[in-house]
């Protein structure tokens, strides 16, 4: 017997909106609503979309050794962020393989780690294991917190009507605590689409009220509910990696394009020795962006060919709704990872021409860095 699928507090909203629910990371999540993935994708690029991402996990770390634990278990330098700032990071195994990617939020009295739903149990055990002997308090708030992502060029104007804080004072990867539609929560200038927008952490018990208030506020500004399908194509167009597809414990951050968050000089952390060694030797494989120059739809698992033989594999891919051609991410040998390198993708027996390109593929997003 497999585990029954979990539902977010917004499950009934998705059903009422005609959402097509599919199993994802142990949850029943909407992959799309009746207008379809392409229309939702375009709405987010041109106006705004509201995503339920309540399946994500939230861990609270507090106590005298809170920073020490975050530093030990993540690759980025959490000592560099201020209260009110968030940081993209990753957790690694001793061999450098990625346990998960995450966002670290620094509050006055604690850190909040936001992790992928599929890795929630694994991450929780991992962090607890590394907290042994440290003076910290660990709490899993995943079930009590709902997360709504409001994304798109109109997101800011829509949200402005509902909050009691100055959104323009919240810079990229910054957050503030405040009320959304009268509900106290965390308003975070983060996202996964390449567009301007905010992620709203609110109590699970108030999720429906906030969802409805945001949908109502955006009703005359082109706001649509958007599902996992659009979330995937939006993040791919801007080259954001997805754990389970592009990131996994068989690849290190240096191989996965996350060298920029890997601070080898911050002091010791789990995986550092292996990563220092790999940096000296050079990562043998690299996660790269691939732009199809022939017609075709690249999908995860398709082989990447060069000089007549299979040399790598596609980990994510789609037909870019905005750009009109196939875009993908995949692993290739380091010597083939340079932008402009010509390769082929085996699309069900047909070799389709592609070129290595440094993401983002789509560069016109409204994101305010």
């Amino acid at each position, binding site marked *: 017997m497999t585990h029954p699928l979990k539902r977010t507090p917004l499950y009934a909203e998705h059903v009422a909106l005609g959402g097509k629910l599919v199993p994802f990371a142990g949850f029943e999540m909407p*992959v799309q609503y009746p207008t379809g*993935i392409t229309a939702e994708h375009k709405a987010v690029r041109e106006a705004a979309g509201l995503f339920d991402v309540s399946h994500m996990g939230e861990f609270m770390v507090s106590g005298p050794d809170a920073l020490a634990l975050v530093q030990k278990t993540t690759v980025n330098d959490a000592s560099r962020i201020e209260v009110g700032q968030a940081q993209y990071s990753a957790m690694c195994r001793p061999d450098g393989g990625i346990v998960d990617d995450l966002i670290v939020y620094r509050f006055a009295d604690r850190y909040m780690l936001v992790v992928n739903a599929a890795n929630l149990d694994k991450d929780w055990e991992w962090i607890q294991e590394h907290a042994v002997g440290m003076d910290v308090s660990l709490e899993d708030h995943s079930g009590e917190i709902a997360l709504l992502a409001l994304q798109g060029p109109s997101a800011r104007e829509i949200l402005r009507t509902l909050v009691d804080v100055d959104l323009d004072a919240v810079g990229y990867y910054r957050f503030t605590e405040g009320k959304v539609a009268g509900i106290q929560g965390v308003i975070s200038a983060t996202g996964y689409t390449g567009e301007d927008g905010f992620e709203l952490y609110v109590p699970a018990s108030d999720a429906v009220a906030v969802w409805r208030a945001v949908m109502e506020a955006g009703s005359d500004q082109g706001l649509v509910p958007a599902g996992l399908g659009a979330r995937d194509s939006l993040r791919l167009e801007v080259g954001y990696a997805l754990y389970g597809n592009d990131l996994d414990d068989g690849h290190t951050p240096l191989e996965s394009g996350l060298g920029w968050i890997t601070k080898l000089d911050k002091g010791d952390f789990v995986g550092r020795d292996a990563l220092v060694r790999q940096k000296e030797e050079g990562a043998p494989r690299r996660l790269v962006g691939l732009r199809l120059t022939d017609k*075709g*739809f690249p999908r995860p698992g398709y082989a990447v060919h060069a000089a007549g033989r299979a040399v790598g594999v596609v980990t994510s891919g789609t037909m870019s709704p905005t750009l009109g051609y196939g875009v993908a991410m995949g692993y290739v040998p380091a010597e083939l990872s340079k932008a402009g390198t010509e390769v082929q993708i085996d699309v*069900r027996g047909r070799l389709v021409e592609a070129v290595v390109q440094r993401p983002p593929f789509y560069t016109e997003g409204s994101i305010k860095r």
Partner: protein
Amino acid sequence: MSDYPSDLLYTEEHEYLRAADEDGVYVVGITDYAQGELGDVVFVELPEVGSSFARMETFGTIEAVKAVSDLFCPVTGEVVAVNAALDDDPSLVNSDPYGAGWMVKLRVDDPSELDALLDAAGYEAHVGA
């Protein structure tokens, strides 16, 4: 709610056939139910005019955002036309599956093979609507 026109023949693989003006020629496409399940179609790969296929042989593929599916030839025959408009606008399969979203016209070799196909009621029962 999916649409099941009564003047069509259907396969369990979610294709439909409609008698064309010319005797023995049928227009083939995928059903409204199928396009709904597939979601946004982004690419349809169709055979060349003049090619022949046996019943249940793969004659093309349909790429939707979520998945790729084979198109199965519903009856043995020769392709006499393909819908070139799908090259430019594959979303016609979603917006008008029984009209502008048709895929090929097939000259049927053995009309008795048509007897094995489903009528609208049979197909509706098949998809469990």
